[in-house]
């Protein structure tokens, strides 16, 4: 009996081990098949479009054997069955989707959910453009990325996530910044473009490029607690420039890295972008063209506003436009919008070197006990996140009104010393502190100096444990 029991458990263990191995091998095969599909498709993408669905993973005979006129494979029928069951979607819309190609520009807050849904729903070829790397402060909203990918290119991370959801579609990685030099070449490879970028010059550039190439554009944006969504350049509808011929002033351009954003807000807009792209690709329903959706998270309100049609005077898509591919290549979008295409914050240089000190110098002065006042000009809600000891928070916007507070703080420091107290100004990155020092010097605070690079440089050069945000 005992030997029998031993034998049985040995066999069971062996079965388990073999099953594990089998699973590993199957996983490896799937992975290799996906790779093969991608390798094979790159040189002849046009031809690939129609075939990509059944390449590799399933024998191509099955569709013919089952006499399926729509060309969906058995695997596809099962995978997308819930789409096929929708009377208003069905086989026709799904096979349209499988034959379509969509480019998502930006794998961030908007691009994350858009890409996940587009991959899942069976878009035949899905392109991703991004040049950033995954950072810890992305994780609260860029849900396509996982902690394991921090420091790695977003395109790699997003592509891996899409492939793990759907290994039967083609995912194309464009690991580069979109510029006028490469935009025509990249966008021309796709049927539909999804703008999931985070800055004004990119939005103008992508819209213009879509007009020149005749591609519909699904444009989404999110900031703070608000989101916007529109489909541009669709069947004679308006383009981004028809609505906004004049770019917003730089002061009105806000970034998530400055103004903040509630993570789920771009998530919602990104999902809606996926929805609009799916509608256009599958030729179902009424795309949001000529209308703009405004999402207000705090009041839980969605408004849809009818917007203007195509403008006859539009510089890019109007009646007498001469705007063409060459104009596009030569157009300077950073100059036009006066803001950079990259998301990196601007570095101001307002002050002369003798009006500034480095964070290391400031540290030395604190250690030596120099009498001084440190004014932190960040907004109050920034100050609440983290601040340097004994700093006085006077936001830049209320600086002029609160000068007396600085004067009295200086006086307090000067008590018992023969020389005057110094005045230093700090902010997050060293731009607002320069503006503040300029203002202070104009108001008679001749000793005011700013700390170069702000708290960011303090964290980099003085105290690596200082929390950054």
């Amino acid at each position, binding site marked *: 009996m005992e030997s029998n029991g031993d034998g049985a458990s040995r066999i069971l263990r062996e079965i388990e081990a073999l099953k594990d191995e089998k699973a590993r091998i199957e996983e490896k095969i799937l992975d290799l098949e996906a790779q093969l599909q991608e390798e094979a498709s790159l040189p002849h993408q046009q031809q690939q479009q129609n075939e990509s669905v059944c390449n590799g993973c399933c024998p191509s005979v099955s569709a013919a054997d089952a006499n399926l006129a729509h060309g969906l494979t058995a695997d596809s029928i099962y995978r997308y069955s819930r789409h096929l069951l929708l009377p208003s979607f069905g086989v026709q819309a799904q096979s349209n989707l499988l034959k379509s190609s969509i480019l998502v520009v*930006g794998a*961030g*807050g*908007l*691009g994350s959910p858009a890409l996940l849904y587009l991959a899942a729903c069976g878009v035949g070829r899905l392109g991703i453009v991004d040049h950033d790397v995954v950072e810890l402060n992305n994780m609260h909203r860029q849900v396509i990325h996982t902690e394991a990918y921090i420091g790695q290119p977003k395109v790699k991370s997003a592509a891996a996530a899409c492939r793990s959801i759907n290994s039967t579609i083609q995912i194309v990685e464009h690991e580069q910044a979109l510029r006028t030099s490469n935009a025509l070449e990249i966008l021309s490879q796709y049927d539909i473009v999804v703008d*999931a*970028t*985070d*800055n*004004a010059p990119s*939005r103008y550039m992508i819209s213009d490029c879509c007009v020149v190439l005749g591609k519909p554009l699904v444009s*989404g*944006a*999110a*900031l*703070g607690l*608000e*989101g*916007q969504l529109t489909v541009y350049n669709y069947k004679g509808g308006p383009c981004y420039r028809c*609505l*906004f011929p*004049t*770019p*917003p*002033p730089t*002061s*009105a*351009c*806000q*970034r*998530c890295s400055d*103004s903040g*954003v509630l993570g789920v807000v*771009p998530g919602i807009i990104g999902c809606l972008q996926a929805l609009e792209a799916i509608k256009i690709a599958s030729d179902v329903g009424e795309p949001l063209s000529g209308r*703009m959706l*405004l999402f*207000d998270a705090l*009041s839980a309100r969605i*408004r*849809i*506003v*009818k*917007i*203007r049609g195509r403008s006859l005077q539009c510089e890019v898509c109007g009646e007498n436009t001469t705007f063409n591919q060459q104009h596009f290549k030569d157009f300077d979008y950073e100059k036009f919008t006066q803001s950079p295409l990259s998301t990196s914050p601007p570095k101001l240089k307002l002050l002369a070197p003798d009006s500034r000190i480095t964070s290391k110098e400031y540290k030395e002065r604190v250690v030596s006990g120099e009498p001084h006042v440190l004014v932190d000009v960040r907004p109050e809600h920034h100050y609440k996140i983290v601040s340097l000891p004994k700093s006085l928070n006077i936001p830049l916007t209320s600086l002029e009104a609160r000068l007396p507070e600085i004067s009295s703080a200086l006086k307090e420091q000067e008590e018992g010393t023969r020389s005057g107290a110094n005045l230093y100004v700090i902010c997050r990155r060293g731009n607002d502190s320069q503006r503040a020092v300029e203002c202070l010097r104009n108001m008679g605070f001749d000793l005011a100096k700013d700390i170069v690079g702000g708290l960011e440089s303090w964290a980099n050069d003085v105290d690596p444990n200082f929390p950054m945000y």
Partner: protein
Amino acid sequence: MEVKTEGDNLPTATPVVKDGPSVQIKVLFFAKARDITGLTELSMEVSSGSTTQDCLNELVAKFPSLDEIRHCIVLALNEEYTTESAVVKDKDELAIIPPISGG
């Protein structure tokens, strides 16, 4: 400033014209316009026959920083695209929509 902070009741702006008929409109602010005014909406009384441009002028007078985004907004009257020459009627809803760029 006559505009009170936002609560359940809409803040109201002082009537521009004291004599003659006037109309009451509701102004909705979005994105940057919301930051500038600190309001999501505002009830405003303007003389009848006023255009959306008149309303905008009035708003810029009240919130001077609105001027910087004035030429980069979508205007909607009762959720429909409008131009600055459209005449506002009583109980109209004027939406001021600057573009958002973030993502």
